């Protein structure tokens, strides 16, 4: 791999593709015509989409944040993507059982997280993840990442796309385009090089399942149908495995284990590890000793019984596949390429059933965790190049849901139907209900149902200043405009009086432009300073956070720790303090590495205290280590 070397006084301009995922975030860029994942200095290709915010409101992102979850459960946020552009009503089930607090925000109907007495919006938290990804890329390549393409699931609606875009802006990134994850995956496989094809993208991740059908014709990609299940993924496979593991225990013991949060976490971790080895091996042995509860488990699970257990889940995904084909008026034979995305498509049963269904093996040569970021990098490269997209593949997107306006009596008039290619515009005339009405409130809705109350509210717009006229006289023209990113703008105008002013945009689940501007200023105040200075300032802040965390971890756990370890951590803490005094890049980085290393066993030990786990001969410590190395 050739990485452009930083030249003193001249910064490299990185134009990246970013896969901002529910579980993990990846950044890629094109080098010598081929897309590559950008790894950080430690060789990590993946940033876990986890943010841990400490008492001083200092955020830590990624692996370090994940480790802090045990010590800072209420301040460690994950699965933030599920909350982007959403309101409390949308989330009912999702919020249960989360250790962190999800609350109604001060901005419209959207939700926020409440961490140590302060509110954080999902856009802000996502921006923190993006900033971390950006910093990693900048440090690794010694350049500046200012422009990027960010991916979203094809079913993401206007508020979710808008929220993603805002997260990018808050992170100081010029978002060249928001593109659909399935489209990115197809680009990564170079399927745009052919002349014509029908492509099915099957994306089975940790918590969600999406399937989309794309059509390629002479360099134009179009998503023609998409569906999915936001509550189906590898986590469900883990649950099936947990059930298998507990098979021999009586109900009382099962209950006991599952109600103990430490034990159930351990079970889940063990199940996931066993699941992954079952993707390679014919069987996996899991040994668990829950000393505090006096329960022992030693079980070998073979691939067959595992497959019997997960088969109904995989078949559910195939039903969705059939649904999406039906929606596109296609039969399985019409599909030329099947593309696998998401970690759970490594499951052999998934690949086998897909092959049976389509009569051809799916594409699996690229890493299913990376293909989306790789495709995004290709598109970023096209859009960021000197000739722009003049000769690149064109992505023709469609609106995933119909859009309309609430009418008198709670009905709805649809202005744009789902699957309409964008950009697009639609206009419709309305009038007043009572004499001398000088303002109309326009309620924009989204969805397929017939009644306003069953649809999702996108926003309210107020048109005021209409001259007094008898009811039915004014002609209010409402214009919807969806741009190439799938983001909606609405304008209203009274024709007879030409009143157009006084339109107030209040997005139901998003931020006003002004608010986004404010947040940008807050977060990139120092953006224009010298790059090196900024990186150093970041590094210092990060080092300070790590120091505080280590001290508090040590204070809380000292009694339970091996004295040798205590000594090591104390030495590392002292080293960190010294490095902070010196405040040069090399010493800070070195001290951070040492301190990170020395506190790592604390987290592991906390786990091990609740239980002793062995999965085919590995302890929890090994598992956590492997996880770290893998990512």
């Amino acid at each position: 791999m050739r990485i452009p070397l930083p030249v003193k006084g001249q910064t490299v301009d990185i134009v990246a593709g970013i896969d901002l995922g529910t579980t993990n975030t990846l950044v890629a860029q094109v080098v010598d015509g081929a897309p590559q994942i950008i790894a950080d200095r430690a060789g990590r290709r993946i940033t876990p989409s986890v943010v841990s915010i400490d008492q001083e409101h200092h955020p830590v992102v990624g692996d370090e944040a994940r480790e802090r979850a045990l010590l800072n459960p209420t301040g460690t946020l994950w699965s933030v993507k599920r909350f982007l552009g959403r309101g409390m009503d949308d989330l009912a089930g999702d919020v249960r059982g989360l250790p962190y607090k999800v609350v109604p925000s001060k901005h419209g109907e959207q939700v926020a997280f409440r961490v140590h007495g302060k509110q954080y919006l999902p856009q802000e938290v996502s921006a923190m993840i993006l900033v971390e990804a950006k910093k990693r890329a900048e440090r690794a390549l010694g350049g500046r990442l200012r422009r990027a393409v960010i991916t979203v699931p094809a079913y993401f609606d206007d508020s979710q796309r808008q929220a993603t875009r805002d997260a990018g802006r808050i992170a100081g990134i010029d978002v060249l385009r928001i593109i659909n994850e399935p489209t990115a995956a197809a680009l990564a496989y170079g399927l745009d090089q052919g002349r014509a094809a029908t492509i099915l993208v099957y994306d089975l991740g940790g918590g969600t399942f999406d399937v989309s059908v794309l059509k390629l014709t002479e360099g134009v990609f179009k998503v023609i149908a998409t569906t999915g299940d936001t509550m189906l993924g590898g986590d469900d496979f883990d649950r099936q495995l947990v059930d298998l593991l507990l098979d021999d225990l009586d109900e009382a013991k099962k209950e006991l284990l599952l109600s103990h949060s430490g034990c159930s976490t351990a079970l889940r971790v063990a199940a996931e590890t066993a699941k992954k080895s079952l993707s390679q091996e014919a069987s996996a042995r899991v040994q668990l000793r829950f000393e505090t509860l006096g329960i022992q488990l030693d079980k070998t699970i073979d691939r067959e019984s595992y497959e019997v257990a997960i088969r109904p889940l995989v078949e559910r995904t195939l039903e969705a596949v059939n649904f999406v084909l039906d929606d596109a008026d296609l039969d399985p034979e019409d599909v030329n390429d099947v593309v696998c995305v998401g970690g759970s498509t490594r499951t052999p049963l998934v690949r086998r059933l897909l092959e049976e269904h389509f009569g051809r093996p799916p594409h699996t040569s690229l890493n299913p965790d990376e293909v989306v970021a790789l495709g995004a990098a290709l598109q970023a490269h096209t859009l960021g190049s000197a000739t722009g997209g003049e000769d690149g593949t064109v992505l023709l997107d469609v609106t995933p849901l119909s859009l309309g306006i609430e009418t008198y009596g709670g009905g709805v008039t649809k202005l744009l139907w789902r699957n309409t290619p964008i950009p697009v515009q639609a206009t419709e005339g309305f009038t007043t209900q009572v004499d001398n009405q000088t303002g109309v409130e326009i309620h924009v809705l989204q969805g397929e149902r017939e009644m306003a109350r069953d649809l999702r509210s996108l926003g309210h717009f107020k048109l005021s200043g209409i001259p007094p006229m008898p009811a039915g006289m004014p002609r209010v023209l409402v214009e919807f405009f969806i741009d190439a990113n799938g983001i909606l703008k609405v304008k209203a105008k009274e024709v007879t009086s030409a009143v157009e002013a006084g339109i107030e945009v209040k997005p139901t689940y998003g931020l006003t432009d002004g608010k986004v501007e404010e947040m940008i200023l807050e977060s990139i105040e120092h953006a224009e300073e010298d790059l090196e200075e900024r990186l150093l300032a970041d590094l210092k802040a990060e080092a300070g956070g790590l120091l505080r965390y280590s001290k508090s971890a040590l204070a809380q756990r000292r009694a339970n720790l091996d004295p040798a370890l205590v000594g090591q951590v104390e030495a590392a803490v002292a080293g960190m303090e010294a490095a902070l005094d010196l405040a040069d890049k090399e010493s800070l980085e070195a001290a951070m590495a040492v301190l990170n290393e020395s506190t790592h066993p604390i987290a592991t030990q906390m786990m091990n205290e609740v239980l002793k786990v062995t999965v085919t001969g590995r302890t929890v410590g090994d598992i956590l280590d492997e996880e770290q190395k893998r990512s």
Partner: protein
Amino acid sequence: MSTYAKTIQGHQCDECGAEMVLLLFCDHCGADYPERKRLNAFSLLGLEPAFSLADETIDGLEIELTRRLHPDKWQHRGERLHRKALLAQTAANQALQAIREPFERGDTLLLLQEEVSSGQLDGNNSLPQEFLVEQLELQEEIAEGLEPDRKRALKSLVRAELDSLRSQLSDQFVRVQQVETDSERLDALKSARTCLDRARYWRNLRMALKGVAAR
């Protein structure tokens, strides 16, 4: 050469004299096509208004126009042309949408016949009671959930009804072209209107059967 380029070949931009390859705007200087405001969905796409139109023709136009107009292609041509292209693609998409689906296309065609019909085609009042009751019952049945066999049966019923309405509609539009008098023409248009009104109900059923509100 594609259909699209053929129909407008030879038109010169009034402002800069360059050959205009798009009926929307001059991709050289950005001037609007002078007649643009008066174009309907068909003529904007360089098509004769007609009910019979192959899917491939429409798909081909969509691809060609997207390749030319997509905003990404115009990023580096300056703010003005970028914006012009965006608006042009928006207009093209809107026109495509108005003629893509046969029943939508029928509606679009009827609107073009305003002169003959002058407001006499406002539909929906002519459908018989039994038809509406039957539709309501089917809607309720679907809403309550269907056994797979029944679902398949209903799907093929809906498909058959829509196929039949589509061919009736096609016949009526052929008649509109062939008949001599205005009253005969109005008669054909009214029959077309009825087909479209019925089709609307069947299309709703088709959506309901697909369970479109999945998410």
